[in-house]
């Protein structure tokens, strides 16, 4: 009887060793110590909720020991887990020391069991998701979707305040007309607009907007700056009105302008 028992034990041990070796050979296939623990826990053949963490810790430590014998390099986190499990094992085996701080061995074991159960649950759930009917495999969307044409409608708004400000602006301008006349090196946008309105009828080809600067304003830097700015602003205004098109090939390149073709407007 005893012999039979011991031989049974021996076969068990051999089987366990073979299993452990198989695991070790496949150690790269594990996704971290928790994954390894989960795999080891299956050898206990019990519900994860009834798993013996103490036994699992021993299995894990045996596994790491075996890996060392085989001179397999284990990643650091496997060793950290081994050290921790050894600590957990001692806590579980020794009677609690009331002077010791921190969570009890049972609490730590319970949490590890929770983690294993949670990981298993997520794996099962992932499998359930992947087993669902899939779009493009089991069910399908419309094969000839119809385009939705986007219609752009522009509405313009203005407020009473805009109106009042606009009016005030005009009246203020009237009041100070004598002063603005003094600023002889300032070419106003209104002036530029007026000048350009007369000229754009002839601007069939792309032309540098600088060619629209009034005569006598190109040389003095201050005058040139003012005239350039107002001519540019006037060009934008004309573009906004749909009278001209503006283009610029890149930053700082000459800005060009031409009359907008009525037919294409």
């Amino acid at each position, binding site marked *: 009887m005893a012999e039979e028992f011991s031989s049974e034990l021996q076969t068990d041990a051999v089987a366990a060793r073979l299993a452990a070796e198989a695991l070790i050979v496949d150690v790269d296939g594990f996704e971290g110590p928790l994954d390894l623990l989960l795999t080891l826990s299956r050898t206990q053949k019990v519900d994860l909720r009834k798993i013996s963490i103490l036994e699992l810790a021993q299995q894990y430590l045996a596994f790491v020991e075996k890996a060392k014998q085989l001179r397999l390099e284990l990643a650091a986190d496997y060793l950290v887990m081994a050290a921790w499990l050894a600590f957990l094992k001692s806590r579980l085996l020794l009677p609690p020391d009331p002077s010791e701080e921190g969570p009890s061995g049972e609490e730590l074991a319970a949490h590890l069991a929770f983690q294993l159960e949670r990981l298993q649950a997520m794996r099962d759930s992932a499998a359930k998701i992947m087993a669902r009917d899939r779009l493009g495999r089991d069910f*399908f*969307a*419309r*094969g*000839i979707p*119809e*385009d*939705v*044409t*986007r*219609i*752009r*409608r*522009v*509405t*313009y*708004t*203005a*407020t*009473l305040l*805009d*109106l*009042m*400000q*606009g*009016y*005030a*602006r*005009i*009246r*203020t*301008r*009237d*009041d*100070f007309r004598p002063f603005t006349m003094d600023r002889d090196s300032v070419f106003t946008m*209104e002036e530029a*607009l*007026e000048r350009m*309105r007369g000229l754009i009828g002839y601007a069939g080809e792309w032309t540098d907007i600088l060619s629209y600067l009034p005569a006598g304003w190109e040389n003095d830097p201050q005058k040139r700056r003012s005239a350039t700015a107002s001519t540019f602003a006037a060009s934008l*205004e004309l573009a*906004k*009105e*749909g*009278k001209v098109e503006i283009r610029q090939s890149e930053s700082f390149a000459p800005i060009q302008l031409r009359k907008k073709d009525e037919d294409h407007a």
Partner: protein
Amino acid sequence: MKTMPEDIEEKEESLFEAPPMAEQERMCEAILFASAEPVSVKELNDRMPHGCDAAEALVHLRKRYEGRGVHVTKVGDAWAMRTAPDLGFLMQKEMVETRKLSRAAIETLAIIAYHQPVTRAEIEEIRGVSVSRGTVDQLLEMEWIRFGRRKMTPGRPVTFVVTPQFLDEFGLESARDLPGLKELRAAGLLENRPPPGSMPKLGESEDAEEEASEGQSELFED
């Protein structure tokens, strides 16, 4: 049980019995829906289980979709599902873009509101720049201004006035409710009090001399 050859044949046929017509209809429906192009009856039959009659299923399917938002239609030799033509308007998405009215348009509108009825020449006189046709057209199109009666001056120029829509939009009972210069000044919109007597006469232009009584200038000088 029965061993007659015809019977056996019948049994074998029943092994391949076609699905009920309602099921065949569902199949046609799904294939037509998901297919990237119209599908011929032959292809439908090829794709559906043995013994199906796509042509008949299509008749039922077409009938089922009569009057619905989607129709089953024949495209050449093939069949397709299409949205009902009368619902084409739903296949457009209108994107309303709100833009601020241009400064030129606001100023023109303000002048018309404050000085109506006012001619184009008067507007240009007040703004100090010519008024583009586009600006006036835009305001006309928005129905914020309309043509008023012609002036009894040489050339009988048309005038512009604001519309009830404009008053409604800006929350005004009448153009007389527009804040006067005094209020504009009080609101800080007119920073400097002009020297007395320097106010240009409103609506002053070559063709507006006789219109003094019609202008609203007195409204703004109190």
